[in-house]
């Protein structure tokens, strides 16, 4: 099955979001959000809690269906054609998405089978090595520390060689050692992948970003397609986000 993109031009944007809206019952969680992320780009998405950032991310990840508007990843529409999008996208969220009663190896093996990887064993070994967890491959995930869980989660997310990585507050709750590994990994793979990162961490977000956006009340209130200085950005943030909501 062809897991490649529908369009292969290097100039075409990797993620295209147009007029995206999401309604939960009576609540408008996302209203008319539009942005594009070029291939190899890094969008850092900031905003207060409840602004709709995670909802947008989950829609791009095909976990939620949009109520209006369109979202395309590498040319595939997330509503009409979700499976190719799922092959291209990896998600790292604050929940590691790992099964506690299985070993590290069994977890990765499960996901490798679900993604239909041909070089399963090799890929698992390669990634365990990259996140420095080879020595724990046969240990139950239940015994892992939070930092180790996040590292294994990164291995899980990269297993199927996704082109797009979606990060939902990946640094939350991590100890400095784990943060270090995560950051160095992100720096390593920065060039080959397209990113969207939702975070509260201004510094980390701005460090890697090629685009910066702020959401508030379901809308995109600020969007700049270039890296922004941290001090300046703090002021920009305060300016655009409503106080005390």
């Amino acid at each position, binding site marked *: *099955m062809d897991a490649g993109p529908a369009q292969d031009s290097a100039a075409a944007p990797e993620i295209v979001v147009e007029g995206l809206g999401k309604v939960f019952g009576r609540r408008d969680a996302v209203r008319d959000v539009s942005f594009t992320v070029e291939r190899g780009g890094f969008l850092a998405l900031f905003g207060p809690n409840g602004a709709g950032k995670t909802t947008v991310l989950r829609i791009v*990840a*095909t*976990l*939620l*269906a949009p109520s209006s508007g369109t979202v395309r990843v590498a040319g595939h529409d997330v509503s009409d054609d*979700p*499976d*190719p999008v*799922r*092959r291209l*996208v990896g*998600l790292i*969220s604050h*929940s590691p*998405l*790992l*099964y*506690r*009663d*299985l070993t590290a190896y*069994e977890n990765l*093996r*499960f*996901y490798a*089978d*679900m*993604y*239909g990887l041909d070089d399963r064993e090799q890929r698992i070994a390669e990634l365990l090595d990259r996140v420095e967890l080879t020595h724990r491959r046969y240990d*139950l995930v239940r015994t892992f520390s939070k930092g180790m869980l996040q590292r294994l989660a990164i291995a*899980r997310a990269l297993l199927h060689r996704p082109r797009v990585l979606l990060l939902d507050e990946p640094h939350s709750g991590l100890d400095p050692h784990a943060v270090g590994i995560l950051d160095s990994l992100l720096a390593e793979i920065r060039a080959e992948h397209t990113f969207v990162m939702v975070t509260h961490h201004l510094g980390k977000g701005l460090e890697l970003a090629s685009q910066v956006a702020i959401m508030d009340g379901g809308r995109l209130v600020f969007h700049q397609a270039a890296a922004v200085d941290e001090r300046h950005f703090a002021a920009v943030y305060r300016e655009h986000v409503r106080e005390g909501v």
Partner: protein
Amino acid sequence: MSAVGRRQFRALLRKDVTSELRTKEMLVSMFLFAVLAMVVFHYAFSVRRDVDLTFFTGGMLWVTFIFGALLGLNRSFVHEKDEGCLDGLLLCPVDRVTIFFAKMAANLVFLGVIQLLTVPVFSVFFVTRGYWGDLGALLAVLVLADLGICALGTLLATISMNTRARDLLLPIVFLPLIVPLLVAATSATTAIFAQTATGDALWPRLAFLAGYDAVFLVVAWGTYDFAIGEG
């Protein structure tokens, strides 16, 4: 099912069975429940010395299995829900119906194992005659009824796991729906144990069970995308 689908099915089934064998939480609970239920039945019915429970055997057995199955069905998605892994599963490029069949198969395996262990115990407690000759018939009833219980139960468990009431909701929606199956399975089983298992009695019930299974398998197939997705 395509080769990819079969691989995914096996991966899902392997995951659930491995997890359960490691903790054995569900299997042990279901087995203990079944044996305890029979003890309770004995004391509930032994009002007089000379009571012949032959015609109650089917009922006791299936009440035990249905409530025991509920214990297991409630846990169909326990790993995904409690450990927040449902996203991980839904992110995979897997046909949602494959997930249904894998979960249903896992439930079938667990229910089957429990039945294998408890039917002999039950026979020792309550059945006065040897029924080796009718074992095939009994197995047919068990298999057909289990299919229905697990098909409907897995579908409903998928819905109920996403509600606030979770464990409480499943029995409320499952029990009324399973009544037809219960009626057919109970009367068939009683006929077998009470030695009134003539062709006339058994075939219509087996056919009914098969029809029931077919109906709910088709309904699950058609609606599972809606049941498991977040919309």
